[in-house]
Each structure stands twice: as structure tokens, then as C-alpha cells.
């Protein structure tokens, strides 16, 4: 796996850091990608969220799970 592939795969995941006041920020690896790789990460994320939702009994992707964890006061912002 190339460094570029590893960065794309990380950016395609749903985990995102947060600021001290709770705002969702870009993935640190996103800043290391060029425009084409960012678009590739977006496409991979689109496929992954569909896949995750299809495999989840409630139809929830990891993005949905992340947001629900936030509103329930669960979760981590560990960078």
C-alpha cells in the first residue's frame, strides 16, 4: 500500500477530530492529499457509507453512528 493509498483510506473513514468547542474538523490526513486524491477519498467514502448502512441492522452508517454518539454524549476526539 502506498502512502497515498493509506491517506485516502484514512480520509474515507468517518472519524473526525473536533475543536475544543465541539466543531467537527477535517481529517488531518485530508490536508496531505491533492485535489484528485481528495475526490477519490470522497468516492471511497460514498461507497463505504452505503456499504456500512447496508450491513447495519438499523441502516446506519459509521457517519450516522458518530453523530448519534455525539448527541448522546459518547465518543472521542482523540487525534
Amino acid at each position: 500500500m502506498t502512502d497515498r493509498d493509506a491517506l485516502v483510506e484514512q480520509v474515507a473513514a468517518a472519524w473526525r477530530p473536533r475543536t475544543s468547542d465541539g466543531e467537527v474538523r477535517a481529517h488531518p490526513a485530508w490536508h496531505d492529499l491533492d485535489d484528485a486524491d481528495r475526490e477519490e477519498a470522497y468516492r471511497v467514502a460514498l461507497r463505504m457509507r452505503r456499504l456500512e448502512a447496508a450491513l447495519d441492522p438499523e441502516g446506519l452508517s459509521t457517519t450516522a453512528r458518530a453523530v448519534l454518539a455525539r448527541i448522546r454524549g459518547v465518543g472521542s476526539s482523540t487525534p
Partner: protein
Amino acid sequence: MSDLDQHLPRIAAGDPEAFGRWVAGCELRLRASLSSFAARVDIEAVVQETLLRIWQIAPRIEPDGRPDCALRVAVRIARNLAVSELRRVGHAPIAEPIALEAPQEPDPLLRGIIATCRDKLPQQPAAALTERLLHGGVLPDRDLAAHLGMQLNTFLQNITRARKLLAECLERHGIHWESP
């Protein structure tokens, strides 16, 4: 076709389960509406921030008689967030009409095939995918890899492999998963 606004009253009353059902019905359409920003803005961050804001303002959303009012509000919030981020880093805003994809109803047959393909994954890719499904939105990949006793790069390789094997399996069932 169901209207996602049916969930609004319970969301406004603070029901996370109702919000989850609303998110399950709209997330992919919201994400797809932001495709033109993908090279300039981290769409995942925008989607999550938008969903959190919808949760906060839900009691103030007034249905306008057309379907999916809350989703249309979400799309506007998301685009405003994306444009703000563009301005913050000195890029010109992207002027493009908002186009929402048609809603897709859950397909139980497709879900069954995907689950069957998942069950056929080799152990390591299956473990990595399961870790992402269980904790991927809450913990970074480095932590997920550590849970499995893998190096980060090995974990990411297994995620890539899981996705490719699933796509190949689905292809054998006539489902073209890797198409955008």
C-alpha cells in the same frame, strides 16, 4: 415513497432514535449533494457538522408542505458550511445549482447479498471491516488497528482488501458496487 419529515416531531422532542432513522434516510443524498466541493472541502466533516446542527435546530424547522423539508434545510446548511470553508482558505465559492438525488428505498435483497459476501471475507479483512463498523465513526484508525494488534498500515490494507473483495463478490451477483 415515505417523507422523511415524518420523523421531525420526535426529533424536535429530542428522540435520538427518530433522528437516527432520519439520518439513515437522508445521509447519502446529503453527501452526494456536496460532490462538487470534494476537492476543496472535507465532505465528511461538513456532513457530520450539518447533521449535528439539524439536531440542534430541529424544533425550529417548519415543514413547508413539500417533501423532505428537513433534508432541504440540511443541504442548505451543508453548502453554506462548505462555502464558508472555501472562503476561509481563500478559494472562490462554487456556484452550482442544488440537485438532490432521488431517494432510494432500502433493498432487503441487496442487504442480504452484501451480508452473504461479508461472511465470505478472509479473517483479517473481516476483522478490520468489523472494527470500522463498530467504532469507525468514534475512534481513529490508529486506535482501531491497535485494538486488533495490527500496524496502522496493515489495518488500512485490510480495509482496502475487504472493500475490493466485497465489490468482486457483489459483481458476481450482478451488482456493480464500485460505480459512483
